[in-house]
């Protein structure tokens, strides 16, 4: 049997940052990833000869500055290029001027929440029974996006920028929490894979080991204390601590036999709601349209988001899903041949489960048509120039990344599933740490949850000594 101090499940940004932190502190660490390449959603591939794109996201949430420096990511090649935000209505467009007041308020709240998430109070409210210590931004749990941002064009644009690729009813109390999960940091030059390779290098140089291409199939435990990880080929890895960076439903409901968990954990994990609603369409364009280097939100209106969200709940593809267009090759010319362009369309409020059955080819074609319609409304005539279009529906995201229901946020962003009501990094199982998107810091920034979990492991190890 292989023996390690810590096993990290999942080699996404969180897992890699966790491994780099742990190995850097001298612990024997192994990262287990089912895909043959590390990176998770931070990957870039060629989807048509000469055209490359990061299939699951163009931008990632900002890596907290302190983690960026600690892992020396700039030297390792992760260079971010900002992507300004533009809103397009049929008759005009609107460029998002950073409104200092809102910006500063969001940043201030985010910083405070991040600080709490990094060292949460000993008992969290995940099981809805323990005493709950109020977190910063608690008032946002009762506020809607329209309460916080107001109404009108500027607000509509800001709502669109916040919800790009996600879904929420901006009029409902609790939707303001989406502001915490926003903070896009721009595209990574060379594609998101460059971020993955920078993080991988950081982990390798620190001494972390990797097991790629084999899925972790179960977590072994004894008396509510985890003891090791079983791999798909039957290999067993013993570890004193395990950091799971997959979402909480997958962690608790598919990596454990339910009898090994305290019943309230099984119940709560079963009731945990996923809020995935992203579909992506990657377009290879023969001729580059004349467009600014921006994320373009098509026809933003809070009411459109509300109606699309209602359709999402009912399991139907909205007739007008919110769409965000990014001509990523304008920000990063390496992604398309000279004179051509790569355009990504991110559709929000696309349900994972359709009320009328499975995601068939016809339904994917509906997404393609919706994406082309959105592109056409911004760049008239662009359809004629499309060489290839790849559709990525929510089930594809689930299958490729193992994110339950294709939700990259690890659970619906709702008042009863955010802030202190997200679990982690410590859990009811001794030795098991949650460092993925479902944990408190998960939606707040890239790598933050992984590093928070790693720090919790280090603190607990020190205490045991």
């Amino acid at each position, binding site marked *: 049997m292989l023996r390690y101090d810590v096993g990290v499940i999942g080699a996404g940004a969180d897992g890699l940052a966790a491994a780099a932190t742990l190995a850097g502190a001298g612990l024997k660490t192994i990262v287990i990833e089912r895909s043959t390449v590390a990176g998770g959603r931070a990957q870039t591939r060629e989807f048509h000869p000469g055209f490359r794109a990061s299939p699951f996201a163009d931008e990632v949430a900002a890596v907290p500055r302190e983690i960026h420096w600690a892992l020396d990511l700039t030297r390792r090649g992760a260079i971010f290029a900002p992507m300004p935000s533009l809103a397009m209505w049929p008759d005009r467009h609107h460029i998002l001027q950073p409104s200092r007041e809102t910006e500063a308020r969001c940043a201030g709240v985010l910083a405070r929440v991040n600080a709490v998430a990094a060292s949460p109070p000993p008992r969290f*409210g995940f099981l*809805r*029974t*323990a*005493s*709950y210590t109020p977190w910063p931004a608690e008032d946002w*749990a*009762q506020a809607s996006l329209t*309460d916080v941002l107001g109404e009108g064009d500027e607000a509509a644009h800001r709502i669109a920028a916040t919800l790009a690729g996600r879904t929420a*009813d901006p*009029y*409902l*109390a*609790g939707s303001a929490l989406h502001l915490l999960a926003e903070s896009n940091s721009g595209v990574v030059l060379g594609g998101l894979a460059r971020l993955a390779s920078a993080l991988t290098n950081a982990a390798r140089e620190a001494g972390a080991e990797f097991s790629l291409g084999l899925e972790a199939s179960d977590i072994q435990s004894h008396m509510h204390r985890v003891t090791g990880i079983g791999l798909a080929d039957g290999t067993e890895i013993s570890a004193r601590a395990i950091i799971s960076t997959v979402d909480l439903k997958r962690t608790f409901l598919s990596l454990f036999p339910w009898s090994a968990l305290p019943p309230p954990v099984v119940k709560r994990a079963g*009731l945990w*709601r996923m809020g995935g609603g992203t579909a992506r369409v990657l377009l290879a364009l023969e001729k580059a349209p004349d467009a600014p280097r921006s994320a373009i939100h098509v026809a933003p209106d809070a*009411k459109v988001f*509300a*109606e699309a*969200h*209602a*359709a999402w*709940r*009912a*399991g139907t593809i909205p007739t007008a899903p919110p769409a965000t267009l990014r001509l990523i090759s304008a920000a990063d010319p390496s992604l398309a041949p000279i004179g051509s362009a790569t355009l990504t369309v991110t559709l929000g409020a696309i349900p994972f489960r359709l009320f009328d059955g499975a995601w068939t080819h016809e339904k994917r074609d509906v997404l393609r048509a919706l994406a082309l319609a959105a592109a056409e409304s911004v760049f008239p005539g662009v359809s004629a120039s499309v060489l290839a279009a790849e559709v990525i529906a929510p089930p594809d995201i689930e299958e490729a990344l193992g994110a339950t229901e294709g939700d990259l946020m690890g659970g619906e962003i*709702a*008042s*009863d599933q955010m802030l202190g*009501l997200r679990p982690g990094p410590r859990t009811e199982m001794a030795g098991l740490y949650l460092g993925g998107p479902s944990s408190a810091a998960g939606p707040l920034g890239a790598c933050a949850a992984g590093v928070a979990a790693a720090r919790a492991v280090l603190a607990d190890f020190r205490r045991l000594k």
Partner: protein
Amino acid sequence: MSDCDALVIGGGVSGLTAAAYLARAGLRVIVAEARNKLGGACESMSFGEGFHAPLTQTLYALDPRVVKDLKLNLKFAVRDMALTGLRADGKHIVLSRDGAARSIAVHSQADAKAWKRFRRELFSLARDMRALWWDEGTFSVSRERLEPFRRLSAAAWLDGWFESDALKATLAFDATENGLSPFEPGSALALLWRASQEMCGLQGAVAALAGGPPSLVQALLEAAKVDIRTGANVSRILLANGAVAGVELASGETIAASIVISSASRRRTLNELLPTGAIGFARADSMDRANPKTGTAKVALALSALPMFAGVPSTARFILAERLESYAAAYSAARAGRLPDELIMEAVTPTAADSSLAPIGQHLLIASVRPVPLAMNDEMKAQLTAKVIAAFARHVPGMHVVASEVLTPAEISSRYGAQDLKMNVAQMLANWDERLRTPISSLMLCGESAISGRAGRIAAAMAIRDKT
């Protein structure tokens, strides 16, 4: 210039209750009612030939103390109206006090099993909350039990208990008052609020008065021997040295009073009746933004026969909502100014138990449809009526509508000054001081949770205590 000790704005149930308590304490009280009729939203509207449709058909939160203290002589036509869900597929669900499990089992065996535990937990939590909602006093719900409800939506809570759409969608209706969506935090708390009330000694019961709500107004009038002025529209509240000094009527007459209790909404009282800036501009602005964007419309149908739904008692209240998701769709459509494709409503047939409301042999069906857009043009009103008729005609072959009447949310609030603040968790967990007091001393509100009369009683008690 006429003088009195206390002036009550509005002659609805809350206002009359407050007036009755003030008078009991020996104060000289004047009730100023803007319209020529008393009763506010308890009024019946007449339509068709000889039909009287009460605007509020049911009572679910009449304060038992008010009934006892004022010795109200009330006769109930129905003491415990069962909550029922009318389903498109005809498998109606009847949540009566004793036979609910059997009816739920048709939809889901697991839900039928969970029902008993759910009711027990709902009622016990709700009883704990009475300390806060029923009387002034220290609030002692254990934080552990209450804490989740600050953040929980009714949809998430019900999803945790049940699997069948029929049951969840039917239960969720009571969580949707004042523009609250069952997907919002606080809506689970709204369910607790309903369950904490008591009618005819039964927890969580919904009752109907014989003669309709006007008989409650009549009983209150008999109990409150006070000076009542109808047609007295209060246009301003007068202040002197930061305290209330009286009111000015639209006619120009002023009435001096050292206590003013307003049953108009908080926003109308503070933003419209007080001098501009009296409560601070920031507060005034925040209240202007918190208004609900959807409302409840009333549709009254006069029928030539009592509509019967298979297996459902006629004295029940009928909820039409197919799934929880229907609420989400309805809210977004209503907010965008359209009628939802699937209307969500509660309906009653008051004439099943009380024949005085319609000509002999004929019947009434009154539907409260929500959410709908606040304002509707005539075309939309006609469309609304047609959809309501269609929703019931599907279950009642040969249903014949003699006459119909629609009141849009905008019409209701322009007539009766309805609730205009969107419900939220903070309001639901506020204590009575926060709810009824205003920044102006001796100016109290009693318009919140209007039908209970409780606010009127407590506002009067507070005002009297402050003065002595």
